[in-house]
């Protein structure tokens, strides 16, 4: 594999962060890890938000140097989950119901 010129690296990183899709996520992650490191975020959504929203999410996170992976999980029954830096923010309906049930049966 040819070496990447240092001056081109920031631009390539930006493109990879913004454009990597689910099919080339692992390759993108490996590349970014090898070239300056990367933080990964997984966003689970109950419904497909459409290409524009997807692109906006990826763009906003890419600005923070975060490689975003968007997954659709209808089992969430609404809302979203965000996995980032070993933490989970659960704003899904599934999570809310579980939280309520665990409070009731605690």
């Amino acid at each position, binding site marked *: 594999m040819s070496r990447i010129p240092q001056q081109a690296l920031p631009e390539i990183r930006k493109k990879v962060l913004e454009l990597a899709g689910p099919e080339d996520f692992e390759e993108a992650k490996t590349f970014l890890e090898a070239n300056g490191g990367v933080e*990964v975020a*997984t966003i*689970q959504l109950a419904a497909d938000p459409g290409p524009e929203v997807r692109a906006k999410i990826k763009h906003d996170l890419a600005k923070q140097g975060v490689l975003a992976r968007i*997954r659709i*999980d209808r*089992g969430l029954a609404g809302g979203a*989950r965000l*996995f*980032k830096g*070993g*933490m*989970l*923010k*659960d704003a899904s*309906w*599934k999570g*809310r*119901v*579980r*939280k*309520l049930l665990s*409070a009731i049966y605690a």
Partner: protein
Amino acid sequence: MPNESLHQFLNAIDEALKKVPERAGAERAGLVESCRDGVVRVSGLPGLRMGEVIRIDDADVDALVMEVDRDGGLAVVLQPSQGVAEGQPARSDNRFLTLAIGDGMLGRVVDPLGRPVDGQGAIGGKLKDFPLESLAPDVMARAAVAEPLQTGIVAIDALIPIGRGQRELIIGDRQTGKTTVAIDTILNQKGKDMTCIYVAIGQREAKTAQVVQMLKDHGAMDYTIVVDASASSPAVMQYLAPYAGAAIGEYFMNKGGHALVVYDDLSKHAVSYREVSLLLRKPPGREAYPGDVFYLHSRLLERAAKLSPENGSGSLTALPIVETQAGDISAYIPTNVISITDGQIFLESALFYRGIRPAINVGISVSRVGGAAQTHIMKKSSGTAKLDLAQYYELAAFSQFASELDAATKKQLVRGERVVEALKQKAQKPLALWQEVATLWAATKGYVDDVPKAKVVDAFADYLAAFETKYASLVAKIETGKELTDEVKKELDTAAATLLK
């Protein structure tokens, strides 16, 4: 449901949720990337620790972390893993595997996580959490093994004595009586201030049920706990079972009490660990076992100890069982466990089928520390038994080719045969100390040399029955004094001469 009603319902849930206290916003969690054969790959959860338990709420299961990497790790699911799916959150609460242990466990059958499996409801009494894996007591916390653990089996107590805090391996082919020796030892602990733990690893449920029933029938469940990880339980549960047994034993040892743990058996334990390791893609080594299979057993058996008086003088004795294939003790696991333990009791198929039961090969069985723990009376009365047997086996082999034998050789053969007969013992019939001493004394001093070989076993049964009634004071003297004084010797001679005429 009409939209308006749905909104009302969702609002009601939102309102209810406002009353639930927040758990500091976000929680530490990663993502299940894959689940195959009960092994879960978790990503997005850096800083996972070996042995940590992660929770997968969506599948209502826990998983034990057995391999870590920069971004997460591999964990083995502890419950049936059918509900685990890719994309589910795996929560980390810095929780490690613990076992709720208390005196209420006595008489119960539990799984390796301490949950009762005997259908008798929750375990009562005060329970405290203890880690499944813990460090063995260090050198300074230990004392020398100096108290005997009476098995009630003459051949063992006389020739291969076991001390409290010792690790003595029971090894042999299948169907040679390994479990029987261990169970008889448990039965003999009645009233001896000993808590017993029987760990069934990869056994048939029917066999474990049979063992539990046998213990119940003999009133031994009052001081016994059974840890059951049957053949039908996941490999990870079988892997954890002996550590759970050791943790329970340590609980009693640390209280200043005495505990005996039987691991039945460590061959199956090694197989279950091999299964888990191969699923975790650890490189296979000899016999496909992973490289740390020695450490698997050494860290378990090192937890057996006799504690110093400053640490309460408690003890944890381990009786691991290992099954050999066609008597091959040079296989990987047998050699490992032989080298870890303080001796081994070798059971042989050939002896078993010749009717010598327990089928202990006294020639290659050894106890490395138990001799120091043997009672004075047992040590003295068994003095020549091992020599008699060694000479007998040597002469017996040669005499097969000899046409004529001299009187001295014939006498030695007769004596050896009688000692072999004296060491025969029925299952579930452990002997008291006085019975063992009386038997050994009579056999090694030649009091049964004139009894036909076929009648020696019956002669000893009658002798012991009469001994108890006619020499009750001598019985008391042996049981309490445990010393072979000249007076006791004289009385033993009189009893044997009178009752074995």
